[in-house]
């Protein structure tokens, strides 16, 4: 197995008939077990790059290789996302009508047939992120920091090869932000999780092993 988990090869993404270059000819390797931070101002194309790496969007030019396979060759990117990726969003995006335990089970619908096994694994994941006492709480009954932990547990639902986090602390106060970063760092350290995180906060980026700077859709450092 190659050491490189994801490779972006001269990837571009253009919107509105080619006028706006969100991402322009970006080449990038993410190795297994790496914790990478992508930094840049808003509009620099960092979120677009993250979406391309995660197969949420298809590039206008160039190619993304995941475990040496071109993402273009996947007919159904949902299949790929369900099994290989975990997403953590800035606004948590938990389903408001489901409890913490139920939210974590959502991605498992695609991979685990047994409802009992889904429940058991979700329970284990909530314990992993330190939320075992609040499994049956609805998102609105949880603090914002707790909600993001549940979202992290949900991202880990199908034992992904890559965890993508888009401004995971953007809606958190500094204390909760540090808590989430410590959690991500622990997953990286203890589980060997490969993590790519978008942030504009240099302090948070310092948790990563490597920082990529983006400007106007290009990697500048």
């Amino acid at each position, binding site marked *: 197995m190659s050491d490189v988990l994801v490779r972006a090869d001269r990837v571009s993404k253009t919107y509105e008939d080619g006028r706006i270059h969100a991402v322009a000819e970006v080449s990038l390797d993410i190795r297994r077990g790496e914790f990478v931070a992508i930094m840049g101002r808003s509009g620099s194309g960092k979120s677009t790059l993250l979406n391309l790496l995660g197969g949420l969007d298809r590039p206008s030019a160039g190619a993304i290789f995941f475990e040496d396979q071109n993402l273009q060759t996947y007919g159904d990117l949902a299949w790929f*996302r369900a*099994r290989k990726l975990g997403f953590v969003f800035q606004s948590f995006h938990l389903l408001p009508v*489901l409890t913490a335990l139920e939210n974590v089970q959502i991605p498992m619908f695609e991979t685990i047939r047994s409802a009992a096994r889904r429940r058991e694994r979700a329970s284990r994941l909530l314990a992993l992120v330190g939320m075992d006492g609040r499994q049956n709480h609805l998102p609105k009954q949880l603090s914002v920091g707790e909600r993001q932990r549940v979202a992290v547990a949900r991202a880990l639902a199908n034992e992904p090869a890559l965890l993508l986090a888009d401004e995971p602390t953007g809606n958190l106060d500094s204390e909760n932000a540090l808590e989430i970063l410590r959690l991500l760092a622990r997953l990286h350290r203890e589980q060997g999780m490969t993590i790519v995180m978008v942030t504009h906060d240099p302090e948070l980026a310092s948790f990563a092993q490597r920082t990529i700077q983006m400007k106007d859709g290009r990697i500048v450092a």
Partner: protein
Amino acid sequence: MHLTTVVVRNVFRRPARSALTVAGVSVAVAAVVALVGIARGFERSLRAVYESRGVDLMVVRAGSTQRFSSVLDESLGEKIAATPGVAEVLPGLAEVVASEDGDMTGIVVQGLPLGPGPLGRLQIVSGRNLQPGDERVVLLGRILAQGLGKQVGDMVEVVKGHAYRVVGIYDASNVFENGSMILTLKDLQRLMGRQGEVTHFTVITVPKDRQSVEQVAERIRALAPNLDVLPMREYIETSVEIRTARAAAWLTSTIALIIAAIVMVITMLTAVFERTREFAILQAIGWRQRRIIQMILMEAVLLAAAGAVVGTLLAILLTQGLARLPQTGRLVSGEIALDVVLQGFVLALMLGIAGGLLPAWRAVRIAPTEGLRHE
């Protein structure tokens, strides 16, 4: 957790909107079940009138599927009686009148011959049956008597200016007969100025197997030109009254169904639009479009099923109420056949799927990256 858990929680997330959808569907289902049920019940009780008498064939003037417009010569009865295979033949005159007494229209008046036939078999619950020598007297069906507020001994205006004395009240096994009145054939012919005329003959045959009945029918047809000789079931199913009732029921139901479908699509579309970002999230974390469509369709079907239950209950209440009202009681039996209820459920199911498809398609049409930006 199963997918159904997610579906049920989503439906209860907006109780007011879900209630609106359920209400829309339930009105449509109630209309279908009540109206079609009433039309069917009417047909059933009409059939019961003749089945209880063992009638096999109905002889009317050709082309007059509306019983009241048929005109036959009473003397034809003797020829029919002489036909091989005919066990009994009875003339009948049916007219429709309006009564100003109880503000009721469309009351059926039957003229029946005295004797052991259908008249002799009537169950009299109050007063007495018609007798030889009776003139200007009438029997009322139980429901009609109630509607008109008449008792034995009271006078009823059968036709304006012609008051008849009620001598008895009968109870037949069906609303159709219980909502009509009976005079002797002679009396009714005189009253209507139709001496020597009848609207139909009812024929009982021996033996009663299909082939023999058809043979007898063939022989009767040969007796006179322009005769329609129909097996009882066919006669009732093709009668204008039944076909009109059925058509009216389906017409009204179709309108109700279209309105329900529109309510369904609008409420579901609103719900789906509000949840655009949620569907984008589900796709981002790996849900296939199929599963999202399945979830939305299940939500729609659940709402439709709830509508079907509420609608059926409404229909039962409605028909029970109509059966008790004097104006409608003689047409509505208040019973709804199970297959009509099933029909209502099947239609609701189709409403759910049809109403959910467009919103479901709309939900997965949006790319996840686009949906994620949706506020």
